[in-house]
């Protein structure tokens, strides 16, 4: 790694903590960002000359705070900036600050910074853009690329989101236990949004959006270091790791979706799987079930199976049943039906999804699964009808092509591939 690359990584990893502390100090997002930016510029110069400081985060907070104060002073009196050497010569001050830095304080700083981005007034897309800009420090250009929109449009989206937050105000008092846990829940949901923005990308966009998955995982690990005993944060991080581990196997060379059963498991990332499994193991010990943990446990059963035939479908059926209790939703029942078709047969699964039709009448995956179940039951005319409706509802060309392949098989010799329609692949 070159010096510059090392400094860049160090600045990125210090960013949430340093910016969070500066936000507490200046109580204004723009002022905090500007102070942090200033500190980074000075770090580029000073760290290259003098080597990295003992505690880069403490260095950035102290220099950022001084830079911010300079700015305030300058505006008030138009005084000249102090000598660069004076500011960089932190010496004892840095040590003293590093000693005072107490984990609990920092924890709330970072949580506050993340929480500002998930204000309930902000639509999901703005929350994600804001988190990537503020917490992760991605440039507007990088974010615009990930969202496949123009830079000017993204700039505007972020500016609008910031204005909304400024109007709503940020809560600076130290949160109580209940409030802290609510914030943590909102932040976890926002991180999963960032992840899904990357994960749900089609093959054409996958490469531009993969960094969003990496970034979400990094934020998950960050939260985990701050809140070590939160099983849902372990579950969230495990879920993201186990899903992202399959990234290299999810599309073929032509950009077609490869469903999990047909993926080359040798392409799954073993160290991400190991980390995901370790985290879900840790979470389970708490015996406090939650939606992220259950979803991670389902992903873990897929990851643990050496071949598609080894997947423990009865267990997945049970896990979806508990997810239905935690978060009742027709889409979850639909996913459960996939497991049911594998463990108890297509007839039971079909009976399970038929009542969902009024609520899922516009949902591609519903008709995809319905068609596959009808085909497995040899009700071919009805299967054809369901597949045709699925094609009409397909969200991407790849989805449509996949169902068309099923339709073509129907016309053939009746050699049926097994039922498949899980939205997650």
């Amino acid at each position, binding site marked *: 790694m070159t010096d510059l690359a090392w400094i860049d990584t160090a600045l990125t990893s210090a960013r949430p903590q340093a910016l969070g502390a500066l936000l507490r100090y200046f109580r204004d997002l723009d002022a905090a960002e500007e102070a942090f930016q200033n500190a980074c510029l000075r770090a580029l110069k000073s760290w290259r000359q003098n080597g990295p400081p003992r505690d880069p985060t403490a260095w950035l907070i102290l220099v950022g705070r001084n830079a911010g104060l300079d700015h305030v002073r300058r505006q008030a009196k138009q005084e000249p900036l102090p000598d660069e050497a004076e500011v960089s010569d932190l010496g004892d001050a840095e040590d003293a600050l590093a000693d005072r830095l107490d984990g609990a304080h920092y924890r709330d700083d970072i949580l506050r910074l993340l929480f500002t981005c998930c204000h309930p007034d902000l639509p999901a897309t703005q929350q994600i853009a804001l988190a990537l800009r503020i917490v992760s420090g991605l440039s507007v250009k990088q974010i615009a690329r990930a969202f496949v929109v123009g830079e000017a449009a993204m700039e505007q989206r972020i500016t609008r989101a910031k204005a909304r937050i400024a109007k709503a105000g940020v809560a600076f008092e130290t949160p109580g236990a209940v409030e802290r846990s609510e914030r943590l829940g909102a932040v976890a949901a926002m991180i999963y949004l960032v992840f899904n923005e990357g994960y749900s990308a089609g093959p054409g966009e996958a490469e531009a959006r993969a960094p969003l998955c990496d970034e979400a995982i990094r934020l998950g*690990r960050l939260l985990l270091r701050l809140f070590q005993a939160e099983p849902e944060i372990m579950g969230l991080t495990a879920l993201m790791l186990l899903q992202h581990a399959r990234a290299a196997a999810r599309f073929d060379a032509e950009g077609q979706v490869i469903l999990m059963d047909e993926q080359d498991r040798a392409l799954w990332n073993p160290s991400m799987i*190991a*980390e995901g499994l370790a985290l879900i193991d*840790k979470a389970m*010990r708490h015996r406090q079930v939650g939606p992220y943990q259950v979803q991670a446990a389902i992903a873990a059963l897929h990851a643990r199976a050496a071949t598609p035939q080894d997947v423990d479908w009865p267990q997945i059926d049970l896990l979806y049943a508990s997810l239905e209790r935690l978060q009742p939703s027709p889409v979850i029942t639909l996913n459960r039906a996939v497991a049911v078709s594998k463990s108890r047969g297509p007839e039971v699964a079909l009976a399970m999804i038929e009542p969902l039709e009024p609520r899922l009448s516009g949902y591609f995956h519903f008709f995809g699964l319905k068609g596959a179940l009808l085909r497995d039951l040899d009700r071919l005319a009805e299967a054809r009808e369901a597949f045709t409706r699925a094609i009409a509802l397909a969200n991407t060309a790849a989805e449509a092509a996949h169902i068309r392949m099923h339709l073509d098989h129907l016309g053939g010799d009746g050699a049926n591939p097994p039922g498949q329609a899980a939205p997650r692949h």
Partner: protein
Amino acid sequence: MLYAILCYNDEEIVGAWSKDYDDHIMARLDVVHRKLAREGRFTGAARLLPTTAATSLRKGDQEPLVLDGPFVETKEQLLGFYVVDCADLDQALETARDLAEANPGVGGYEVRPVAMFVPGSGLS
């Protein structure tokens, strides 16, 4: 004399390495491993998962306390380590409890999954 060489770095920075850079470093380390193996001095190497995957067992007067996260040293020093094959975290913690029972008192154990293990006999 056997020596243990413990590896320290900033896990956030190492975690942010690109795959290419990570592969590059692992290939460079592999050269060192192979040299040691040729000299008959390589007994194994392990790369650990991040500290976020750690669970700790703290010994005391009472039943050992299981805590999420790495072992936080206050007055203890690292005095030894085991590499144990376990079915899951529960079994690993059970093993740590056995060790605590055999060696009661202060201190404790950090149980950390091994991400990658290069056995000494695996290289030639």
